[in-house]
């Protein structure tokens, strides 16, 4: 893992002190709400329906046990005993008081954490594959690139007041497990012939009102050119991106409107002028960061084996385990989607329990996945049985990673000031129904995501079955879309037809699943069936 040195620590502490002082100026009235808003958002602080919400950064989804324990303690001390892991690998507290925020941020700084740029119209926390560094199909650990980007984008002088938020994801493996093509910029890191990192840059992806799959901007950009290129790309966006309508302010719309060729020309013009000496230390810095991640990797282990255990254990490992890059280990996911649960929520006690288990069984390391689950990346094969038993005891052994009941959901109209409908009760009802079905009929291998408004924080566009909560004449209605996906074949789902009431949703989803089963050939996944048979049979079944 990356450990802060004196410089990083000073930076985070100074930023915490600065925000404390900004809060004081807000309370004294020196800062108006209009002025305070961008400042608080850049420190992760939102205003929701019932309270402030603090979103804490978990850079590229990596935590150590000490940090997770602190997150649990914050949940108990300053929230109502729980936190919510988000689709951008962060955690948010829904019951924060403005008067507590500065203390919370100080506490975070004491474990090398912060809430910087988890919100606001700036470059947000960079995300990546939750299995970075341990996935079998990985050719380059994306975390050093993500950390370099964290440092480059933190308090970037030009890019703190952009037209709109800006999200970057980095990948270094064959499979996309970070929804990279739904980001403003996606970086697909690869190795050149000399073993040095290069990056395929994808641009203009995003969900929201106008969902777009990112387009390839440039292939094989060498590490030395990465930051100047991003600087130039962001500068053009900052100057030309629309500011008259927040729904048209993302870079995807700029590229739609000006065309990718004109955008590329403008960026090239910028790039030609850029003073590259500014980035002279970046490659050395990357190497320094990468060395830290390499040192933290574990050597292969001999004599490790998965013991014969109960069928439940093997079913769990089959579903939640992941083949490891290094012999002798497995990476294991902990589902935060137990039957009837609120997707992504974890109590303070659960966070501390997972922190303890990570210490005992995973080299003290935990990951947060964009599907709102946790991962223990370094479990010795010999320890799997004991880990499973401990997880069962904590009610954290649900074997449903990647299944239909592993639902992504945003906080919706329970908490969020932007939401148009509730998503949590829908997710809970579906989770109960679908988990039951899975336990009865076997795993249902598809993605099901729910958003409580068109902003699509619940990634409904990118799911095999997407549910979007809308407000139709002051009552909640849920619109369903089919055929979306978030992997390397990323696709936006197609709307099925008129929406349904909250009560109808579970039956409708079961009808869709029945229809898929009826038309499914061999081992087709949902997308394959859907692409072959189209929307019609699903429509007929549901609106019959």
């Amino acid at each position, binding site marked *: 893992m990356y450990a802060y040195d004196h410089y990083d620590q000073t930076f985070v502490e100074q930023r915490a002190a600065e925000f404390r002082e900004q809060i004081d100026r807000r309370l*004294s009235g020196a800062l108006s709400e209009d002025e305070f808003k961008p400042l608080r958002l850049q420190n992760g602080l939102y205003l929701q*329906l*019932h309270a*402030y919400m603090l979103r804490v950064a978990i850079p590229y989804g990596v935590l150590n046990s000490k940090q997770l324990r602190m997150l*649990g303690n914050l949940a108990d001390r300053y929230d109502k005993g729980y936190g919510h892991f988000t689709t951008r690998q962060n955690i948010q507290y829904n019951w924060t*008081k403005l008067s*507590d925020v500065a203390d919370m941020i100080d*506490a975070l700084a004491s474990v090398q954490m912060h809430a910087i740029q988890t919100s606001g119209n700036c470059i947000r926390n960079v995300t990546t594959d939750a299995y970075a560094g341990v996935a079998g199909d990985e050719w380059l650990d994306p975390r050093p690139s993500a950390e370099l980007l964290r440092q480059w984008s933190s308090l970037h002088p030009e890019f703190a007041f952009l037209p709109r938020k800006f999200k970057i994801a980095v990948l270094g493996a064959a499979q996309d497990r970070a929804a990279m093509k739904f980001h403003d910029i996606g970086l697909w890191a690869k190795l050149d012939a000399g073993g040095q990192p290069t990056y395929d840059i994808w641009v203009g992806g995003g969900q929201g009102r106008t969902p777009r799959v990112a387009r390839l901007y440039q292939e094989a950009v060498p590490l030395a050119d990465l930051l100047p290129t991003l600087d130039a790309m962001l500068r053009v966006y900052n100057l030309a991106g629309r500011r008259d309508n927040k729904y048209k302010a993302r870079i995807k719309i700029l590229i739609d409107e000006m065309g990718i060729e004109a955008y590329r020309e403008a960026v090239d013009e910028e790039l030609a002028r850029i003073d590259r000496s500014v980035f002279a230390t970046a490659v050395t810095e990357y190497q320094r960061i990468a060395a830290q991640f390499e040192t933290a990797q574990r050597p292969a282990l001999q004599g490790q084996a998965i013991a014969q255990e109960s069928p439940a254990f093997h079913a769990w490992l089959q579903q939640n385990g992941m083949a490891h890059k290094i012999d002798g280990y497995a990476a294991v996911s902990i589902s935060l989607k137990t039957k009837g649960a609120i997707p992504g929520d974890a109590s303070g006690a659960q966070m501390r329990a997972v922190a303890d288990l990570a210490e005992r069984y995973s080299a003290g390391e935990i990951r947060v996945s964009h599907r709102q689950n946790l991962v223990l990346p370094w479990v010795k094969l010999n320890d799997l049985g004991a880990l499973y038993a401990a997880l069962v005891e904590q009610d954290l052994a649900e074997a449903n990673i990647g299944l239909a009941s592993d639902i992504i959901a945003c906080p919706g109209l329970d908490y969020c000031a932007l939401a148009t409908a509730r998503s949590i009760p829908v997710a809970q009802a579906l989770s109960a129904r679908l988990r039951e079905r899975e336990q009865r009929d076997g795993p249902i291998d598809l993605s099901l995501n729910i958003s409580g408004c068109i902003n699509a924080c619940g990634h409904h566009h990118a799911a095999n079955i997407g549910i979007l909560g809308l407000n139709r004449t*002051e009552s909640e209605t849920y619109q369903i879309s089919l055929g979306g996906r978030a992997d390397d074949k990323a696709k936006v789902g197609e709307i099925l037809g008129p929406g349904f009431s909250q009560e109808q949703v579970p039956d409708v989803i079961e009808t869709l699943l029945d229809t898929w089963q009826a038309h499914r050939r061999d081992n087709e996944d949902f997308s394959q069936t859907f692409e072959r048979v189209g929307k019609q049979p699903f429509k007929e079944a549901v609106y019959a």
Partner: protein
Amino acid sequence: MARNAHAYALSANDLLSGAQVFWSTNGGWSTSFDQALFSQQSQALEPLGTAEEAANRVVGAALIPVDANRRPIALRDQRRLQGVSVAVRTTDNERSANANTAPALARAA
């Protein structure tokens, strides 16, 4: 303003706690909707919201249109008044209840 509105209440978030508050019949903010002041004139409440925001007591001041039974007309207002649909600790940031499970926080220097 809203169609079919019989009257309006004035709502906001308290600046410090962020809690939803209502302009009350006592001439101040209350967390209880039961104590909200209702006016048939939206213009009577709007300037009050602006003034209270300017005085740095609240943020996000907005009118709640209600029907004849003083039930909010907008879905968002209804849901907001109902509170979250999930069971949450009702005590307000209870610090002592978890004293046994939550070790003291390290306070950064």
